């Protein structure tokens, strides 16, 4: 298993997981009916590489919408990274007038023990 690249749809996010650079990015919207099935390959990817790659994993999350089942999967994914003990950093992007996404980022930050940056972007 190496890189993962999935184009986003109206219900699923664009996913780019690469070893060079060592990064995992989710962008767009995550409202699939079966979020567990959608996120499982990412869980497997983390499991396969987080223990073996020495570089820091950069996790970029730029989600516009996500449903509550995705929120749980996202939490599981970050917990999986945390459990591997690999160096990782989460960059949580939100539009500067979107307080819901800011709060969501704060909630993950409060639970997950990984360096977490909340990054505001200007609303287009």
């Amino acid at each position, binding site marked *: 298993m190496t890189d993962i690249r999935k184009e986003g749809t*109206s*219900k699923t996010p664009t996913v780019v997981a690469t070893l060079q650079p060592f990064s995992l990015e989710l962008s767009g919207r995550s*409202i699939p*009916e*079966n*979020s*567990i099935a959608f996120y499982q390959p990412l869980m497997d990817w983390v499991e396969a590489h987080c223990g073996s790659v020495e570089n820091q994993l950069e996790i970029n999350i730029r989600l*516009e*919408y996500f*449903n*509550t*089942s995705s*929120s*749980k*999967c996202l*939490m599981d994914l970050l917990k999986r990274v945390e459990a591997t003990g690999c160096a990782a950093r989460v960059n949580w992007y939100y539009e500067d*007038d*979107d*307080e*819901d*996404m800011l*709060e969501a980022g704060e*909630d993950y930050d*409060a*639970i997950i023990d990984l360096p977490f940056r909340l990054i505001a972007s200007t609303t287009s």
Partner: protein
Amino acid sequence: MYGTSPASFDTITWPLEPIPASGTIECQFSGCVDEVVSDVLVQAVEHRVEALGRAHAKPKRVVRVAIELLQNLHHHAPADGVCGFRVVSTRQGWWVASRNEVTDEGKRNLEERYGELKGLDMEALRARQREVLNAPERSAHGGGGVGLIEIMRRTNRNLALTFIPAAPGRWIFELTAHIAADHD
């Protein structure tokens, strides 16, 4: 009160909860909600919210509430059951309502769950959501029961649950969520 006579989707008007008469119906649907229908309705709501602009309410918040209500319809309504979905806009904000049939047990579960949450203030709701997010348990659909908390938070607890008797052991359940305009 809506009486005790059996009701059906054809015989009750909606929304049951008071919505200003000056409101504009932005989106309305009645039928089975599957993945495709849910997708189309989310896009319809998004289109209307964007068209009306930010003065009405936080646009993404309205879409988020619609996403949760449609997810509930898809996951919890009987596969062949008729559901209702309606979005109304006013100067005071948006009302997003969903309707589906539930059994006695479903009604009890909803009332019990809502009863546990409605006494919580916003900070306590947030703390509860973090607890559920952090817990290993999952619901059958993967959410772990965080949907109702999310709707309560996004509406500043402005939601109403209504049950109308439909047939012995069956109820029509309507959930109406109000997202206030920014200027309120």
